Structure formats: structure tokens, C-alpha cells
């Protein structure tokens, strides 16, 4: 799983490519921890390259959400494919942060 971070001002855009399985979730968490969230108000995950996400990946997204929400920021997921989008809706994550499909 690969991630590309683009931080501009108070917004961070993270483009993900690959499967967010157990392994991918760990890499995601590692990459996220390296981010400077001091001035970040918004984190946007671009899921355009994500084909699969498991519960571990979902759990990591929640960790990220809590991290940014504690600073008053918000988290969004964009360009999720249908399977991923449906999965995130099943666990009602769309009620916590913004999820948009491709």
C-alpha cells in the first residue's frame, strides 16, 4: 500500500494506492504518524487507488479521525469505489466523516 502526502496550509491530502489490509493498515498508521498535524484543520484521503479495505484499515481511519477531531479538524474520504463505499456505509462511518464515491 502506498501513500502520497500533499500538505498545503492547514489541509493535508493523502492519496492511497493499494489494499488497506492488515499490512496496509499498519503502513498507513506509520505514515500518518509522521504527519505534522499541528496546523492541520483538514485531512482528505483520496481512495481513488484503494481496491480493498478491511476492518483494520477502518480502525486506522477512526484513529486518524480522533487525532484530527481533537484539534477541531475534520476528516474526509474521497473517490471511494462502490465496494469500499458500501462497506464504509455498512459500519456507518459516513455519519462521522464525509465519504464520497468516485
Amino acid at each position, binding site marked *: 500500500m502506498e501513500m502520497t502526502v500533499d500538505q498545503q496550509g492547514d489541509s493535508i491530502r493523502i492519496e492511497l494506492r493499494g489494499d488497506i489490509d492488515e499490512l496496509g493498515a499498519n503502513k498507513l498508521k506509520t505514515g500518518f504518524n509522521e504527519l505534522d498535524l499541528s496546523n492541520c484543520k483538514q485531512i482528505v484521503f483520496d481512495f481513488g487507488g484503494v481496491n480493498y479495505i478491511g476492518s483494520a484499515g477502518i480502525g486506522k481511519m477512526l484513529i486518524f479521525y480522533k487525532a484530527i477531531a481533537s484539534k477541531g479538524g475534520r476528516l474526509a474520504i474521497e473517490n471511494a469505489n462502490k465496494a469500499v463505499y458500501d462497506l464504509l456505509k455498512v*459500519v456507518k462511518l459516513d455519519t462521522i466523516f464525509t465519504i464520497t464515491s468516485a
Partner: protein
Amino acid sequence: MRIRLVIYGLAFLAITSALVGGLLYHHDINRNIAVNGRLQAALVARSVQAQIESHLEKYQTTALLLSHQHAVGRVLQRPNRVTRQVVQHMLSGVIRQGELQTVLLYQPQASASLVHAGASAGASGFNWRGDVAAIPDDASGVRFIDAADPAGRRVAAVATVNDHQDNYLGAILVAGSFDRLERRLTASITGHWLLVDAKSRVVAGAPTWRGGRLGSEIRTVGPEALPVAPDLNAVAPDQLIDAAGNRYWFHRQDVTAWPGFTVVGLVDEYQCYRACGMVFNGTRSLVIAGLCLGILVAAVLIVRFAHRAVADEKLVRDELAKSEGRFRELAEMLPETIFELDRNGTVIFVNQQAYKQFGYTKEDLQNGLNGFDLIDAADRERALQNSLRIYKGEKTGLNEYTALRKDGSRFPALFHSSLITDQGQPAGIRGFIIDITARKQMEDALRAERDQTRRIFKSSPSVICGITPDGTTTFINQTGERITGYTAEELVGRSWWQTLYPDQEHHQVETLLAALESEDVKAYEMTLTSRAGQKITIAWNSIVNRDDTGRIIEIIGFGQDITKAKHAEAKLRNSEAYLRMIMATIPAGVVVIDAKAGNIIDINPFGAKLFGYRPASLIGKDYHDFVCVDRIGLCPREIPCGDRGGSDVVLHPDSDHTIHVRRTHTRFPVGDREVVVQSLIDITDIKQLMRKQSISIDLSKSLLGLVNGRIARYTPLNPKLALFAQAQAARCYAEGGDHYFLRTIAADDEGRTGRTIVSLKDQSGHEVGCVLRSIITDLIHHELLDDRTLTMAQTMSCLNDRICELDSFATADFLTAITLEIDHASLTMHYAACGHPPFLLIRGREVRLIPDTDQAGGNLAIGMIGGVAFTAGRIQLQVGDRLVLYTDGLTEMPQRNRSFVINGERLGRMTHNVLDTQPVPKPVAIICQDLLQKIAALCDETVIPDGKNTSADDVTLIGLEVEAYNRCEQQVIRPHSVESLAGQIKTLAARISTEGARSGIDDAWQNFRLVLEESILNAWKHGHGEALDKPITVRWRFGNDLHLQVIDSGPGFDFNRLGNPTDPQGMTRSSGRGIYLMRHLTDQLWWEDHGRHIHLVFHRPLKPAAADIAPAGASDDG
């Protein structure tokens, strides 16, 4: 005539005399002119000659004088001053006269000539030497030599100078020009002259004649005839003609003093004519001319006086000729043949029309055509007699004969002839012939038309009669006689009105007469009373004949008996009124619509009420404006002509109301258009009732569902085996008919093993009570099953008896049923088919229908007759056996569109073909699906389980399969690291997915992977505590569904106490969603072994691979 001849003779004589005299006079004149011309020319020539010689004489004199002076004074040798002065004085005097231009003294002994020039131009260019040298030395006297130089014409007189001894000393040349002489001569002499030298060169001459310059036109002078110019031609020894045709007389006169020179005198014709007026010697001619003139005058007088005498005769003759000419002209113009015959009957004259009409030619006429040849032989004798009468002076008028053409063809003609007289004597016959062919044809046509009119008159079905204005009958046809009952003799001459129109109806007569005064009357109805007293209504068309003053003289009537039509009309009115009354009172809407345009033509009050408008306001409106667009049923435009049908339609009179109507329609032609008549019955209440009924039916179905429950997909038979069961039902009728259940009865303490009962039933009929009967039937069945003492056969017998006893089952009500009972322990299956199609047992690739005919297990339908002992069949099931139960809706599906039912043998064949498409045993769920789709395609029906069913009946299939748990694939995962665990999971997921695709499960790959991953990760994380040395066992099996098992060796967990990750309090937890997702993404999930062994089932979607399904319409036999 004689006088004319005499007068003409005298006139001729006079004219001739005049002509002769004139000719003689002319000849005389010409002769005189010629004589005068020659004389004039001679005079001119001599006069000019004299003057020239005089002019030359001066030269001569001068030369002589000078020569003498020289001789005396010896000027040549020693000229002294006095002599020179004298000579100069003399020369000057001569020169002053203008006639000399130069004088030369020539002394041959000198080497050069001595020139003593005069006052005028010198002798340059003058060839003195040559000319003088020609003079002999001993010559004496003077001679003239001709010389010319470029400066002008010169004539030189040469006088020799001799001494006392008469020795030649030299010469005196005196030169001068003739210019002055020429001018003087031209002015004084009438006529023209030329001075011509020996070389035929014109030296001098009159410059012009008749405007032309003579000298310039004259080039040469011929030695003979003296044509002096190319345009002067000698036509006689003394006449010339120039290029313009002017005639000249000429005379030549030699110049004596100048040998070789000649004077030519010319006189033109015009001058001669003038001269002739003065010089005339034609006394004789004058006398003759006078005589001729006198005779001419006398002749003119005679002719004139005689002209009057013959004028009248001529006038008469002219008039006669004109008249004849006009006659001929007229005759030619007439379209009739005009002829004249002589006394012998020979045709002496015919006009052009005769040639055309009869075909004869002028040659025929010349050859003596007889007039009677123009008449056919049959009429010739009569024509001859008439001719004789004409000769006697009688008038015969117009006679009709048959005319005969040259080619033998005939035509009718009228002949009119009259006598020609000559000096009071008959000279012939004159007449005209009129071709009456067209008239004859017209007469024939008129005759035929009259005859036809008479026939029409007689045979016309209409009354035709004529009456005078006062009502007197003039004629009546046979139809009139028949209708009135009176004969023509009884009516003609009598009053039409009084006979046929009694007093009480006479007002009709007065009205008619008043109408006829202004115009013809059409379709006027009058009721007459026949002889028999019947009232007969006639529709009359009347026309009138009027005289010149416009007064009506006759009324002609054409009448049609419309009595019956009137009666029919009255009947029709009554019928219409009756119909209107019915239409107004029936409690159903009747609307008539134009089939093409769709607009309302007619509607009854009840129908208008349904539409929500008054009837009058609906006429002409578009019917579709009042019908719900999506629930219009069959549009009137689409209804074929002659079609009768019905449908339910929803009207919307306004936006708030809808009315359900049951519509029946008929389309048929009326006149030139087609109409659709619809009757509309308001079924809104019925619809509401049905809606309520639907609610009741839904409730009943819910009850049935409660009674029977749902078929368990998997029923464990024993630790190793499970019974897969799936029902695929497509309802046709909301009221139901097919019903089924699967019930498992557990083993009891009394040693009875567990058993599973599957029962599929089909109630007769499809009315509302069908569901209730289904409920009752299954309740009874379940009750009976509770009694474990009953065998299957006994159970079915009791069920039959109980059903037969029930009042809720009418005599005609029955049901068919197929019931199976499978013993869990032994896999022995008992079966009872009660009037139901046999079920299919598929073992491997073998297909059997059970029960066979006459085998145990085949029974009557339930509810037909009570007290029947039902039988049950028995068979030993094996692992992998597949059973298909179905209702007759499946096998009878082709009945509607293909007109056949599928018998057992065919069904078995079709099932076998379905099996053959896969190498691995096809799951029963797919077999049922494929079979259903194949049969539906064969019948052009759409039958979708729990969905659409276009066939004629409910279709239900129940597929059962004995599945073995332990026939699984297995892989043990040993995670050495998180990375290796993730990789192994991914690889395993791919492997299982590939196998699934081969098995026909190829979708939801992502979901399966997630479930697999979550289950394995749970086993690793929660079961093994993330230990990397503990194996995790994964098993999977593809059967009717995909079965997945994940087994760990952990402590297990309480799977009944799992949280809800979607609970708002726990929403943000980062873990605990795995099981939630697995539950969501699988169809079945359960644990064994305290949570250490999880079972996950993915139901196979009913969407088989395309290769398994035969195309629609293909043979079911493969």
C-alpha cells in the same frame, strides 16, 4: 361589236400613222443631227486651223524678220550695237505680245549655241541643238519644228539666216506657246479642238468639254479613227463615244503651215441637238409629223366618241361578267354542291364542293359527266321525271334523293333545281345539292332518344306526370297509375288536385303552386289519397314549362313514393327515443368514440357523470383527456375493427378523483368512419373491495408463513451430512395455490431418530379461499406430524380424511401433494405423491422420476374421496443425491403457447441435458434454476422466483440435496509475520475465488476476501493472541453454497456477547468491526467449539453461468 372593230381599226390606223410619222420624224432629226454634227466639227477644225496658222505665221514672220535683220546687219558675225538694239526691240515687241518666249540665235560654226533669251523663262531643257541640227544647211525660209520642254508646250519657228550669197549662217528659232491662243480659242469656239503633232501627241486643245478636261483625258490620238483618249471610241468614221457614252462628231484638218500637225474639231451630240433647233430642214418630216399628229388626234376623238356608244354595252357586259364572277365566287364559297346541266343533262359547271362531295375530277367533267350519275339508280327515274317537270316550267322544290359518289358510296341529299333559259328557251338546269347525312343521323338519334325516353317514362319507378296550372292532368306514367290506382284515361283531362287531394289536404297544393312561381321545387312532400283510400306520401321534384311571357303552361312532376320510408323513419325515431331512454337510465356509462380521432361522438348521462361533465359538453372532446395515461388500457385507435374486448381503465374526471371502470368495447364501421362503443361500469367500489381482499390475502399469507415457517437452507442430518433445501416459487395468482414446508422433527428419547419432512402442495382453484385452505391443510398436516406414531402413509390418509370432512373444503376442492420424509440416521426416505407430479431423483448423472406408475407412493389427490388408504414409497438416499419437487405449473407451462404439456419422460430428458453441461456435479439449486429457465424459454414465458410470472399458473420447485460437511478443501495458515500472514490470506482468497468461479460463484470477490481475512485475523489476533507459531486451519467447500470454516486453537470466546460497532457510543472504536462485517457480508454465520470454529456460508446467487442455459427455443432434447 362591229362599231368597236371599226373604231379600233381607225384608232390603230391613227396610232400606226403617228408612230410611223414619229419614226420618220425621228430619223429625219437624227440625220439632221449627224449632218449638223459633222458640219460643226469641220467648222471648229477649220477655224482653229486658221487661227493656229495665223499664230504660226507670226512666228514665221518674226523669224524671217529677224533672219533678215541679221543678214543685213551681219549680226551673227559682228553684231553691232545698233543691230542688236533693233533686234532686241523687235524681240521685245514680240515678247510683249506674250506669244514668244524666247528667241535663239543659232550659229552652227560656233561651238556653243548662242542664246538670246527673251523676257520669259529661258530655254533650259529645250533641246534646241537637236532640233536645230536637223535643219539642213541649205534650207531656207521658215519651217516649224515641234519642240516641247518640261516648262510647257512650245512651237519653234525656225528661220535660217543666209548671207548675201545665200550661204547658211545660222538659224533664228522663235519659240512660243499656244497657251494664249488656246485660251482665246476655247472662249470663242463652240466645241472642242485638239492640235495633234505628227507623233500623235496633243500639243494643245480645248481644256474641257462637258466639264472634263480634254487635255488630261487624251493620251493618244489614233492615226485612223482618231480616238483621242482611251475613253473615246470611234463608232463611225466621224463619230466618237466617250466612256460616259457621250457621242461626238469630229473633223480633222491638217495645219498647212506646220506639216505633221493636225487640228481635230469635236462637237458633242448635245450641241447638235441645240443646233438642230436652229438649223432644221425637215419640211417633209414636219408635214408627216403633222399628219400623224392629226390622225392621232382624230383617232383619239373617234375613240372617245365611239367609247360612249359602246360604254353601255361594255358596262352591261362588265356587270354581267361581274355578276357571273360573283356567282362563281359564291358558288365556290357555298358548302353545298352547285351544278349546272345542259339540256342533255351533261354537267357543264360544278363548284369545288362538288368535287369534294362526289369525288369526281375536272377531267371527269371534261369527259362529259352526266348529272344523273350523281343520283343513285333507285332514285334516278324520279329525278328524271322531276327534271322534265322543270323543263315544263314547273317548280319542284326540294327533293330528297340518295346521292351517289364516284366510288359508289351513297349519302342522303336534298336536290333543288331550277331552269336555265337562254333567250327565252330552256337551256339547262341549275341547282344545288345539300348533304343531309348529319341531319339524318340526328333524326335517328332523336328518334332513339325519344324511344328511350318513352321507355324510361313507362318503366320509371317514379311517378311522372304533367298538369296544367289549373290542375288538369296532361299525362301520367304507369307508375303513377299504379300508385294512384287510376288509369291514365281516368286522370288525363281531369283535375289532378281534386281527384287525388281531398279538400282537407288542398293546402299542400296551394303551397306548391306558390313555390313554383319562383323556381323549380325539389323534395316537396305531399300526401295523396289513392283510389283505394290509402294515404301515400310522395316526394316531388317539379319543373315548369313556361311560354314566351314567362307564364307557366305546364307543371311536370317526378315523384318518389316515400310512404314506407316515412314509416321507417317514424319507427327509427321511436327506436332512437327508446334507445335514448335506455341510455339515460342504465347504470352503466356508454360512450361512442371516433376510432381514428379519439373524440367523443355520443355519451349517455351515466357515462357523462363518470367523466364528471354534462353530456353536451363532452361531445367532441378527446376521450384520452379523461383517462389516466398510464392506465388507459387499449387505446381506441389501437382496437382493430370488429374487435370486442374489455379492460379496466382509470378515469380522472379531475385531479382529486379517480374512478376505476371496467370497460368493454366494440369497434365497427358506421358510414364512412369507424367508431368504438364502450360500456363503462364503475368498479371503484369493487377495486376497493379487492384492495381490502388483497390485504386479507396478505394477512392470510402471513399466517401461512407463520404456520409453515421458512424452509431451512441447511438441516443437519448427522454430524457429517446436511440436507440442503431451497424453494424457487413464482406466483401467478395473488390468491396463492402452491404452498410448502420443511419441518425437522428431532430425535426423541424413545429411540425415534430425527426426520425431516418436506411437503409441497397445490390447492385447486385460485380464489381467495385458496390461501385459507392452504393454511388449514398445513395446520392439519403439522398436527398429524406431531403424532410420531403415524407412518407417512397413515399421515397422508388421515390428512385426506380430515380434509374431506371439512366444510371449508367444497366438494370440488382438492389438493395435490408430494411429501417426503427423510430419516436422519439412515437416510431412508419415504415418499407419498397424492395426485401430484412425480419428483426427480438425480444421482450422479442418473435421473429418475419417483414414483413410477403403479408404484407405491402414488395416490389420489387429497380431498377427493375420504377413507382412502394412502401408500408411501421408500428409497434409500445417498450422499450427493439431489431431489427436485415441483408443481404442475412447471410441466403444464407450455400448454398455453405451445399446446403441449411436459410429460415425465420429457422432463427427465430435459433434466439430464441440464446436468450434462458441467463436469462437476451441479448443485440442485442450479439444476432447479436451469430447468425453470429452460422450460420458461421453451414456452416464451417469464418466470422469475419471487418475481414476475407470465405463465398461467403458480410455479414452485423445491430442490433438496444431501451434502457432506467433510468434503472440503483445507489449508493451514502458519503466520510467521504479519506480512506473511497478510500474504497468505491474500493468496488463499485468490485461490478460493478461482475455485468459486469454476463453480459458478464469481461475484462479491471483495466481500469474500474481507470475510476470509477478518475470520483469519480474528483467529490470529483474538484466538491466538497474535502468536506467530500457531496454525490456523481454513476449510472451504463449494456445494449449493460456499461454506467457509476457520478454526483456531485459542481459548474461544462468548460469541453471544458481541458489541455493536455501529452503536453511537462505540462508533469511534478502532476495533470490533470484524464480526459485524462478517455477519453483514455472509448469509449464515455460526460458531462451534466455543467460538474456536466459525462457519461462514455464502449463498450461491441464482445466476448460473451462461453456458449452462440453453438458448430460448432450443430443443429440450439437446
